[in-house]
């Protein structure tokens, strides 16, 4: 019983990591997409640039997927025999997934807003593309740091 609980807690962690990150990315890309559609109605030629900027908040979802993947690999649910996971180990994995679950969700939305603002910027000044791309990338730093912490924590749990 305890082992099943441990495994399920790990699965919950993975689910939170993947689910919240994907939500963050989805909202972020949605916000950016609205602005993108607005710009493209006027200037369809900007499709390439707009798509680039709109795609930026997508990495959060990938980081979440990555963490979820690590978490369930750790408890042997993917490729290989399930390993015995104690309640405490399972709880540890759940906690380790939280930085990603929270950080990616929030940063995904924030990055979406910045991307949308950047899209507005290139609508008016296409020559400033460089700056427009860097600003959303500033937000992503914190998505990377969340991922980093989750990976380090997952790594430090011995099974």
């Amino acid at each position, binding site marked *: 019983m305890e082992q099943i609980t441990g495994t399920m807690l790990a699965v919950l962690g993975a689910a939170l990591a993947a689910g919240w990150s994907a939500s963050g990315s989805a909202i972020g890309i949605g916000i950016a997409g609205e602005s993108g559609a607005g710009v493209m109605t006027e200037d369809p030629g900007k499709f390439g640039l707009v798509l680039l900027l709109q795609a930026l908040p997508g990495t959060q979802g*990938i980081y979440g997927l990555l963490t979820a*993947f690590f978490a369930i690999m750790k408890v042997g649910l993917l490729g290989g025999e399930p390993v015995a996971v104690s309640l405490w180990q399972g709880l540890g994995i759940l906690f380790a997934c939280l930085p990603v679950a929270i950080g990616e969700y929030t940063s995904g939305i924030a990055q979406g807003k910045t991307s949308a603002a950047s899209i507005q910027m290139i609508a008016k000044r296409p020559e400033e593309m460089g700056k427009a791309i*860097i600003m959303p990338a*500033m937000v992503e730093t914190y998505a990377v740091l969340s991922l980093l912490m989750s990976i380090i924590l997952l790594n430090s749990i011995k099974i």
Partner: protein
Amino acid sequence: MAVLPVKKVSITVHRSVEEEVFGKVQAFGRCEVVPLVSQGDVSHAAARLAEVDDTLADVRFALRFLEPHFSGGGGGLALLFGDKPQVTLPGLAQMSHNLGLPRIVQDLREKERRLNEIRTEKSLGVSVQNVLQHLEGFPYPLVLLTEGTARVQGIFGTVACGNMDEAKRLLSSALQPMGEIFPFIPKDPKEKEGHIALIFPREQYRSVEELLAGVGFSRTELPGVLGDTVEEEQRRFSARAVELAAQEEALISATRDLAARWVPDLRHTLDYLSVVRDRRSTLLQGMRTEQVLMISLWCPAPEVPRLQKVLEPFSQEIDVALADPEEGETPPTVFQNSLWAGPFEPLTKLFGVPEYGAIDPTALMAPFFVLFFGMCFGDGGYGIITGGIAFYLFKKYRMTGDARGYVLMIMAGSVSTILYGALTGSWFGDMIDAFPFLHVFQPLKNSVTIMDPVKDPMTVLKVSLALGVVQIFFGLFVALYDNVRKGSYMAAFSDQGGWLVFLTGLILLGGGASGALPAEGMAIYQGVAALGALILFLTQGREKEGIFRKALSGALSIYSVSSYLGDVLSYSRLLALGMASAAVGMIVNMLAGLISDVPYVGWLLGAVLFVGGHLFSIAVNVLGAFIHSLRLQYVEFFSKFYGAGGRIFSPLRYDTKFVAIVDREPEGAQIIS
């Protein structure tokens, strides 16, 4: 590393040859005009400019009208990469001259006017048809409602459905037996308004109007052209609509033919006229006297001899003076990079051009950019694919400008990706381990693998952070060099020297505490850190007034260490993105492996998933790799020493969109009609 010095070349030219001389300067293409509010009598030059502006407006109009109907490719991709058809200037001039522009433009204006007329008439027709719809069943000619006769007149309009019965009742009692009422109740019950047409003797107009006002009637003016019966008019308008549609179609198809015929030539003419316009507007930016024109140019110093050679044939008519830029002038920035660093200039330009005389960071950043790109993209197989595509494009098109730079950057980045992928054993994710039939390659793959970001992220994290420390120290050294070069020894010693010593001390301390360095040296490490801190404390307040403020700023500056810490941590993205590539690849392989167990079609589904999944992974990761390695340069590296703030060199040259102007007709090239 530094930008090219420039010279100010002042040319005084006799007005008889001014256009010819600046034609040569434009062909030379390496001189920027120093803007000057024109002085003296410029009316002649202004008129010459207005003349070409006028023609340009015509060409732009023609292109604006024709381009939406033009389907022939303008060589989209080739144009994007700067691969344009090559022509000579005389050839282009000849072509533009023979084009017969006024005739084309007149024809197009006529077509545009006609199209507008047709569209106006069409929309008018639609609105009339709408009105007629409401009158279906009205038995008399409509002239009764529009004009009336000598004794009878009519009114048509709307009434709210609720008032309809009331209106009918009131009107029929008032008009009996002289008038007639035709109510049209809408078929759709959601419709709120119905229509009423009335015919009555003229003398009853007043009373009818009052009645109608009482029931909220609002009158609809019928267009005066309506005279016949409703059916007749409907037939006429439908016929006319068909006729108009046919006319419009014919006009548009004719326009399409015209577009196919003229758009390429018009585009070339646009280029030619822009070249002429650039040259003529230059002639407005100088000092003029009765006889001569004086214009100053910025020319990169090494190219001055070539400029002089270009101007030699005019030695009788012109006088050339050379000077160095003076205090207060803002000369343009001309990049000077070796062959390998040149392609990276677009990245520096994206951030901002260096000031004249300042350090150009392009070559300093390029190796880091390539290395980081490789680490972020992080997969040998992906590197082969992007590198292959970039190489193919590079061979296929004769690339110029920034596009060439980007393609070369991707090529260099791909090579670094392949190397990094080999070191981390990542080939399309874990393809070699995941699929049994590829196991033969395992020994080969494993022989060069030294670390694995997925299985052992901590090692890669350490490498990433170490690279961060290296680049930040390098940035500080560059700033130090720059300050020494400029003679600001105090700034070099305190701002960079202080931080270099302090940060070194901290790293040593960290190394000692974690056991990576011998613990006996702890006292030395502490000493180094303390010395650095002392330098910062004593010097960082040097701009402030008063001992207290000096001490306060000095002490506070030490807190900036947190920003250095943040900078270094930022390099952890090298691990994160590299790991993301490898792990997404791994997930794709795993899913492909799982799905290939499906009986019969499994291998096909697996293959599709494998190809599609990896293509998606490449698209997402190449974008991330590019942006994040760029961000590390801009935010973490440039902030140490680079301030942009310059102005890009924009010489008077052949600035064209659709053709490349060359000296000599290329061999075997077809001559444009």
